[in-house]
């Protein structure tokens, strides 16, 4: 079992981008239909890009267009990781992160911030609030994949999860990406 001490071993890191498309570990996880990724962004095209990219690689994707919608989904269902935008109307990503961390440790639910905010202050604040990592926009997909992979391999998947309870959804999938959990 991986050692985990809340607040001191959050798997935070800087990273070097490299392609991880063919990594056997992550592809095995993804193809088992057990890896469930929640994409949170108020901008539909950003959600669509991330959803399309990860869906094409076998992930099951749920989407939320606001912080409140994301928290509702997390309360209802189990996810393996969250990609979370920061600057959103209403509840921003930092507040969403704060609330997630009241109930889910960074070990059990990795949260990777994805933001066009690029200042060191924003990055530090996110990491201090419990984000596992931080990706800046424009999105570097291979970096996003590498980080999701990294944090998934640090996090046990829930074997008790009832797959029949999965279908949810808030937005229609992007057409060529067939693995979205979203339903009409």
């Amino acid at each position, binding site marked *: 079992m991986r050692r985990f001490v809340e607040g001191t071993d959050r798997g935070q890191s800087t990273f070097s981008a490299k392609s991880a498309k063919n990594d056997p570990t992550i592809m095995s996880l993804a193809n088992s239909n057990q890896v469930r990724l929640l994409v949170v962004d108020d901008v539909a095209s950003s959600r669509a890009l991330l959803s399309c990219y990860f869906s*094409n690689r076998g992930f099951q994707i749920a989407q939320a267009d606001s912080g409140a919608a994301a928290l509702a989904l997390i309360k209802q269902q189990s996810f393996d990781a969250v990609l979370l935008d920061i*600057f959103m109307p209403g509840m921003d990503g930092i507040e969403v992160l704060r609330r997630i961390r009241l109930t889910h440790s960074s070990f059990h639910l990795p949260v990777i911030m994805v933001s066009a905010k690029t200042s060191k202050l924003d990055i530090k604040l996110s990491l201090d609030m419990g984000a596992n990592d931080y990706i800046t926009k424009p999105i570097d997909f291979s970096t996003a994949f590498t980080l999701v992979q990294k944090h998934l391999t640090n996090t046990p998947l829930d074997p008790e999860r009832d797959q029949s309870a999965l279908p949810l959804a808030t937005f229609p999938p992007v057409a060529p990406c067939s693995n979205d959990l979203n339903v009409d």
Partner: protein
Amino acid sequence: LDSLVAEIGFEGVQQTLSTFIAEADRRLKRFRQLACDPDRYVIELEAHALKGSAGNFGLRHLSETARALEHSAREITANNYAAALDCLEQSYTTARTYITKQCIVG
């Protein structure tokens, strides 16, 4: 856009660009409906969203123009706001034309 096609495929790019254009059309119309003093936060938020989404598609000039508006939103004057929107619309028109010429979307 070529690198994006490599990542999510041609159809994926078409779909997501269509979403982007629909959003950007709405966003630019909304900018014209906003006024500086009561709406500075919304202007900043909308400009930030356009900066990020345009950047994701490699539309660098549009992204930079949106970034400039985002960063000036808290103190920009009404006249400068109007001028900034003109720049933004010009940049968006160029980007949209480029996308269309690439036959990515209609």
